[in-house]
């Protein structure tokens, strides 16, 4: 009698990640993205989602991939969190997975810091490992700001050093 988690699985790089299906609003093709100046580089910009302005984050950059290439099957996962919409660019979004709640393990401690502090657990489905993401941490302004700032500092320091 174990509960099942319904998860939308998507690929970023070689890994499969998952977010709860309840937080998914829709999946769209990548439209024209308007870049916002002075924002962290993993924030791609904003898109027009049928008259709504939605900010878009490139998960590939967020998870540390340097050169994210634009491919035809790239998608934007529009997720709803705390009443607002946000877009996540992923390599491809494929499936809905049902993971028994007892097949989810807590994330290893190394994930608690850095860019991956948004991992809530690791789910196992037929031998595959799904990295489950926590929306609130992923989209939390605090983590974004601190990351953006540290980056700014880094570049500033670099500039100062030269």
């Amino acid at each position, binding site marked *: 009698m174990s509960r099942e988690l319904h998860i939308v699985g998507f690929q970023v790089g070689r890994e499969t990640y998952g977010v709860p299906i309840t937080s998914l609003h829709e999946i769209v093709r990548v439209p*024209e993205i*308007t*870049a*916002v*100046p*002075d*924002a962290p*580089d993993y*924030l791609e910009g*904003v*898109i*027009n989602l049928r*008259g*709504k*302005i*939605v*900010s878009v*984050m490139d998960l590939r950059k967020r998870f540390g991939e340097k050169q994210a290439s634009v491919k035809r099957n790239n998608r934007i996962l529009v997720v709803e969190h705390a009443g*607002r919409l*946000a877009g996540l660019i992923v390599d491809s979004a494929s499936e809905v997975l049902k993971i028994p709640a007892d097949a989810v393990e807590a994330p290893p401690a190394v994930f608690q810091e850095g860019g991956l502090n948004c991992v809530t657990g690791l789910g196992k489905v037929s031998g595959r490992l799904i990295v489950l993401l926590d929306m609130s941490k992923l*989209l939390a*302004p605090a983590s*974004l*700001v601190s990351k*953006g700032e540290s980056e*700014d500092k880094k*570049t*500033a320091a*670099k*500039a*100062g050093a*030269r």
Partner: protein
Amino acid sequence: MTNSPDERGAELRELFYETSQELVQALNEEALKLEKDPGDEEIVRSIRRTVHTLKGDSAACGLRELSELAHQFEDALSLESAASHAAVAEIAFATADIFSEMIAAYHSGTKLPATKTLSKKIQELTAAPKNGKTRGKKTAGKTAKSKEPAEKASLGKSSSKAADQWTEYERLAMSKAQASGQDVLHVVTKIDPHCAMPIAGRQLVHNAIGTMGPVIAVRPDAKSPAAAKFIEFVVATVQTPEQIAAKCKIPTIVEEVTVEVLLRASAAPQPAALEASTEINEPDTPAASDTAAPEQSAVATLPAGSVPMQQENLLRVEAGRIDNVLNLVGELIIGKSMLQQALNEFSKRFPKEALRGKFADAMAFQARVLNDLQRSVMKIRMVPVDQLFRRFPRMVRDVARQCGREVELSVSGQDTDLDKGILDAIAEPLTHLVRNAISHGIESPEERRKLGKPGQGIVRLNAYHQGNQVIVEVTDDGRGIDVAKIRTKAFELGLTTPEEASKMSELEALNFIFRPGFSTAEQVTEVSGRGVGMDVVQSVLHRLKASISVDTRLGQGTTFRLKLPLTLAIIKALLFWVEQRLYAIPLNAVLEIARTFEAEVHQVDNYEVLQLRNQVLPLLRLGRPAPERDVKTKLFVLIITVSEKKYGLIVDGLEGEEELVIKALDDQTFSTDLVSGASILGDGRVVLILNLPAVVEHVARLRPQEMGHANSGLLLTHTDRMRLALTPEVGGQV
């Protein structure tokens, strides 16, 4: 009125909370008048009318404490001796404050403020023996002229006491019911003294009467001790008095019922009475005032201001609903540009198609209607500035007293309309400005006389339209701002160097007063001097995309001028390209668009500047930094003004002018302040609206030695920088 009594009560209360604000405001205004003209009986009467209305309304809502206090004050005022007492104005102010506190307390369900001191003051007022001619409030009364006594006589003994307590609102309801062909009946039910649960019984009777027609008034209040003894109703109905009596006579609860006709359905002999009494009373009062105390009954009959009358044509609508409509109109405008775009493409593809004309006609028609729609919806949100200005007389008086100044407030342009949201937002900044004007601007009366000015200073509030903006001015005729003092202070605070300070223009120096923590006041007082105020002003105005300018003459006074947008939702914007991306800035910030060559751009102190006619403007390159001195490159320069200073923005190309519906960016995600919002164009493209003060500030924050190429590349993203392979120096200066 078919709702259950509970629901109706809640509705009534909501209405009361709103109208009572107006009444308290009116009370404040009258008290101010009285202070200027002490002993004016007409004003005292008008105060009493206001208090009376407040009493009636609060009693109807079951707010006992408030109605009791109002009653007490009203009673006190009805005494001739009290009315001419010098302290009346003072007490009226105090009462107004307590009233508004009480209303707030009722509203939020918190503890009521203490009223003991106030009631004591009021009692003193009553007790003050002036000429011993104290008259009871019901002694006077020109029976022939006021309606109330006549009514009393016709109603008989039991009802006489309460009959003069119908409020204006109830009276209005009565005459309306009468006009609509219903009899207005006065029903007095005596509750059986042996009844076990008189209050429950009361509710039963109320419900029974409610089935016969709308109940206009109920007396006494459910919470008052008399409630268990008798109940009076005023009910509008088409039933006969006998039917009502039968309905009300509930065994074991009601002992006795008397039903009288107050007003016969129209064409009855009395209908004019309500109006007539007011008319007759009004001219009569001045003559009567010196001999007789103003009649209680007359007061009840006089309309308190025009408030209840206006309610007829006023709708109180939640602001959120209007915003919804405005949002939808915004979507429609986007839709319109989409259609226009499609039509253009269609025309291009089928230039000979006859349908084109039809489409164009329909489009033009739709555009016109849409324009009207947008304007009407925006008008709904518009309110006269008076709503804000009328709070000031009281405040000016209090602050002037605290600071020991004599100040006259002169207000003009109250009819100027402004978006409600903006109006609410500028309330605080405006308060700061007026306070500053009194405490910093206006000198003490002695000082003023020494300078040959009249002892009473003037603070002027003015509002007017200018193009697509509304200007609100706060002017004082005080000492003006000493720019030299600001320069020294700025230097003391380490905000600038002496050389810089001396080079600075007057306007630039004046801008220091908007810095947080900057105050030239020698001492911190209760009202001002902490240097926080102007900072608040500035930050609010930034948020509103508004600007402020200062105009000061030493010894002659200062003017603060707020330039506000007409609305927050839609702006006229200029669209331009930077690095293949579209941006917009508010059109009203653009002075002109210049075309120039790279050769015209000069370097001064690491700043790039442009000489335009006889002015030298600092330049901001929004896109990539200057290429290797290709002097022939043509440049577009937008000349903009930000807080009275001019800048040139170098952009790659121009797109045009468009009306943009502003949508907020998700500022939780984007920490940038360079962008104040976004909008969607007809073809679905997203355009970012730049926040000009922040853009300019980004550059101004950097000291010249750090500048380098820093005044370029503001709008480049990380990817752009990588693509352009910029030197790290430039990359670091974001």
